[in-house]
């Protein structure tokens, strides 16, 4: 005989689905807390890909939740269960990405830092084994210029099209493609360099 723990706990048990619905209906504080705790790591992982500073990433994470809670009424999904949760996470990810891009644009460093030549890139040691670890990839990403890192994240990780990237960053599509190519090239170079360092040891 199996019991679902959430039913044993009665009204105190929440799922992401019920929390999203509860938050949308009456702005329930308990639902917000559940959503925040359930999605904090997911949102923070996104913001950390765009900004190097952890404090900035924390701020962007919180701002993403503020915007999500205030706009949660606009989140419409006819689905339920896991599909709804996946849909909600995608919606939340889009908010986090937009806020991160806004943050970078506000700092006005998005384009200025692209002039870094390949020779300026630090040869930072990256531990690489058969598996790719997030920490290692983040170290490689951190060595890219911000505009290239943003385009790489948007296109390769988040799945945006070049058209969407160009609209989001207010750059031509061709520039988006060029910067993506450069970003990938640099990543490969950095990766190989890190392998050589490791092999040299």
């Amino acid at each position, binding site marked *: 005989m199996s019991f679902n723990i959430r039913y044993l706990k009665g009204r105190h048990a929440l799922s992401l689905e019920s929390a999203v619905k509860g938050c949308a209906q009456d702005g329930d504080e308990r639902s917000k807390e559940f959503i*925040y705790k359930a999605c904090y*790591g997911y949102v923070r992982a996104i913001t950390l890909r765009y900004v190097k500073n952890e404090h900035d990433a924390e701020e962007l994470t919180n701002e993403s939740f503020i915007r999500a809670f205030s706009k949660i009424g606009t989140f419409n999904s006819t689905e339920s269960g896991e599909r709804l949760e996946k849909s909600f996470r995608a919606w939340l990810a889009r908010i986090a990405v937009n806020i991160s891009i806004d943050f970078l644009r506000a700092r006005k460093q998005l384009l200025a830092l692209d002039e870094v030549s390949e020779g300026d890139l630090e040869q930072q040691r990256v531990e690489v084994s058969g598996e790719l670890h997030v920490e290692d990839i983040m170290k490689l990403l951190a060595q890219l210029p911000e505009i290239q890192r943003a385009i790489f994240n948007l296109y390769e990780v988040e799945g945006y099209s070049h058209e969407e990237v160009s609209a989001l960053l207010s750059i031509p599509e061709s520039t988006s493609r060029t910067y993506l190519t450069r970003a990938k090239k640099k990543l490969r170079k950095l990766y190989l360099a890190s392998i050589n360092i490791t092999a040299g040891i």
Partner: protein
Amino acid sequence: MGEMKEGDHNNELIHRMAETLRQHIEPYRPGAWEQFKAQYGQPKRTVSALVRYAGWVAAAMLLVVCGWFLFNQTPENNLDTSRTAAESPMGQSGSELREAKRATQRAEESAPAVAMPTDRKESIRRLALVNDQEETVPVSRVPSAEAAEMPVAAAETPVVEQRAAREEPLRTDRQAQADRPGPLEALPMEREAVRTARRHTGKWDLGLVVSPSLTTERVNMGGGITVAYRLSEKFSLSSGASIGEWGLAQQAGTPQYAQRASLDVNEPVTGNAGFITDASQYKEVTAVTSNVLALDIPLDLRYHFTDRFYTSAGISFVTILNEQRTNHFIDRINQPTFGEGNSSHKDPVASTQAVYSSERAGVQPLEGKGYAGFVNFSVGRTVPLSRRVSISLEPYFKLPVGRLSREDMDFTNGGIRIITGF
């Protein structure tokens, strides 16, 4: 073929990187929700409510202060100086004086056990008759025994002073007063400064000021605007305009030249020479106070120790817009001797009653004068209420210098400015 393999390998590498990043979830940081709730939750709303409340309070206080000044500027009582000044030295009503007359008569009928000269009695009777016909105002009375020993310096009557302070200042030339711009009309420069400041909000700081202050005479209230221009990160130049009503006392060591406005020089002197025949001639001036309405324009250099703390020093230009002087007298009359009808067991000297009175002076020696007036010192602390609104508490001290310090009134004052900054 080799290039294709390399290309596939490279794409695979990028795909693996992207997939790894996509799947990654950061661990939950303990306390993150609590911090989020504290930073962006309920307290923020409380702060904004507090800002709104503080703004309303500051606006209301400023409105009250402005209204108060405007009200005080309105001429209501255009009293004749000589009539106003003709207060009863005994401070009694008509019925009391009639009773005094009857008592005097009874005293005359009875055997005069008290050694009082007949002419003195006559002069007092005249005094009573004169005062019976004149407008009288109540003044505080002090029982004879204590009053006889009371030092003159302590003979000021706060009740009378407060009443005098509320009374409309005397206007000998009403038209001239009407032609003069009011205190709030006299600030076109400041209005222009405000407009300019709004155009350059980065360098300019604006504020509304309410400043209770303390002179040697009483607690006063003032208000106005302040404008500051940031010269550098540490220094700023501040100015503005404020209007305050100050109650002033005479400076120590200043000779009292209170004019006896109540003295009727046309009163025929009767009786024997050498005896006082007029009520006012019993009076001895104990103090002169002044109530002035002043426009103060400071020019201060402010040094910011930190973002919150600053100190400033500078000078103020002062114009006296209006003045009302009040003379304070002490009279010694042995009137109760007669009131009891039988003065046989009373020592006429010991039973002398001291009566205190105040009257408006007919002169305004300070009115209309301008001075390069004060040296100002202050320290302040700024408490930000929001990104745009802040409140500063600034204790200050103003020391009169130059001609202002040589005036007979003591202008030294200090207080605290409450500045709502925008």
